């Protein structure tokens, strides 16, 4: 086991992936809780497909994928929330339309340019090799900003999601907080997608909070538990993926599923 870890950390790409992965897991789990509680879970899924589409367009044009995707996915997040508010089209239907369309656009563009090869597989299901040195700085910087904003607005976010009407009545700008959450989610999805892949990134957002909520019943303890859990599951997933040669994204999701089942089992034993 120790040998395995030693070997693992001797590769610089693994170290890079772990630095990025830990910061992404941490932020994703924090953003996940408000999204789940507000019934916005699907937004993460929708945005990840949009992120795939934008990457597919950015690559052949020779742009840095992160710098193009982050603003575009943020724009999509902004539009999704706007559509939800106007309520002409139902929110979940709007997400489905946007996510399928951008996935289709991504696949079409990729098949015409880089070809349907391992590249497409990497972006769909993630690759631990994908992260370059300069991207590490960008990822860590963005994660730090997200973390700082979350801590700063922590109490406010709680009060808004716990009771939106109450917050509105006492003069809180609800749109600002919803938009903030959506934009931060967009950013974290684009970063995390390199490791997790477009298909699996939303699990990083949803799982940790959902798992913690099985057992814990206080907001603060759920936040702390999901942050820790998310990092542990990420590391576990990377180690397993390295040892058994499984794609990292899938094994991280499997680790999260395992944690969820354990917590669920414990909670059903406690309730008895």
């Amino acid at each position, binding site marked *: 086991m120790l040998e395995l870890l030693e070997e693992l950390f001797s590769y610089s790409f693994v170290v890079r992936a772990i630095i990025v992965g830990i910061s992404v897991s941490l932020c994703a789990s924090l953003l996940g809780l408000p999204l789940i*509680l507000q019934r916005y879970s699907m937004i993460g899924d929708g945005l990840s497909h949009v992120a795939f589409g934008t990457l597919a367009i950015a690559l052949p044009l020779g742009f840095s994928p992160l710098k193009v995707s982050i603003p575009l996915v943020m724009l999509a997040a902004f539009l999704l929330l706007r559509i939800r508010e106007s309520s002409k089209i139902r929110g979940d239907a709007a997400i489905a339309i946007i996510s399928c369309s951008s996935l289709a656009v991504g696949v079409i563009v990729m098949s015409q340019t880089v070809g349907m090869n391992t590249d497409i597989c990497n972006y769909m299901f993630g690759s631990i090799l994908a992260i370059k040195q300069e991207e590490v700085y960008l990822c860590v910087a963005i994660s730090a900003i997200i973390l700082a904003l979350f801590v700063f607005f922590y109490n406010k976010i709680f*009060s808004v999601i716990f009771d*939106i*009407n109450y917050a*509105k*009545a*006492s*003069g809180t700008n609800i749109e600002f907080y919803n938009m903030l959450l959506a934009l931060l989610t967009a950013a974290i999805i684009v970063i995390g997608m390199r490791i997790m892949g477009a298909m699996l990134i939303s699990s990083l957002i949803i799982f940790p909070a959902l798992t913690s909520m099985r057992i814990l019943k206080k*907001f603060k*303890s759920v936040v702390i538990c999901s942050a820790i859990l998310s990092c542990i599951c990420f590391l576990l997933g990377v180690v397993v993926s390295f040892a058994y040669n499984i794609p990292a994204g899938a094994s991280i999701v499997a680790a999260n599923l395992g944690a969820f089942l354990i917590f669920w089992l414990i909670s059903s034993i406690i309730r008895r």
Partner: protein
Amino acid sequence: MKALLCKQISVKYESKLALEECSFEIDTGNFLGVFGKNGSGKSTLLKSIAGIIKPNSGTFDFYGIKKNEIGYMAQQTPVQKDFPASIYEVVISGTLCKHKRFFFYNKNDKKLADKNLELLGIEQLKHKSFQELSGGQKQRVLLARMLCTEAKLLLLDEPASGLDTAAAEQLLSTLKDINSQGVTIIMVSHDIQNAVNFCDKILHLGKAHFFGSREEYNARTA
């Protein structure tokens, strides 16, 4: 002193008129009871005063009440059903609307939260989870949170619903105490009989809206 002037408020819900031409005027320290049948627009009126929905026509004029000095309390929302939150977290979040730039709780906020927990007799529930409480306990927690805003105008939508008669009576008399300290209260209720004696002004929504003092209202219905 005038607190709120409400002029010919009409609200539409998807082309259906939910509230038509409602006007009234209350002074600081008034306890206004809003009554009426289901669908007469009671909650709609309260939401539009709170600024949660925009009326299609008419105006509200607030006198000496800032936006963050309005407390609103309604029935539980579906979101709160499985929301992980301790009672303390919920109650102290009421102090936030007084914070302009930094959203961290200070000593005064903590004191205020403790004071209101005690006032409503729920200090022993402090560390319990909100979702595990009974309906009446939840109402008291939401009331404690609202008191933490130290609002000048309280808007209450059926605060006593789901409570037994004794608990409802107790809640209403707590409200009356708060009211007697100069806080203006507007309360929506379907239970006219029990609530009417706590109010000094009555607004009855119906085909023709009635607005007047309690004495006038009693004389009208007698």
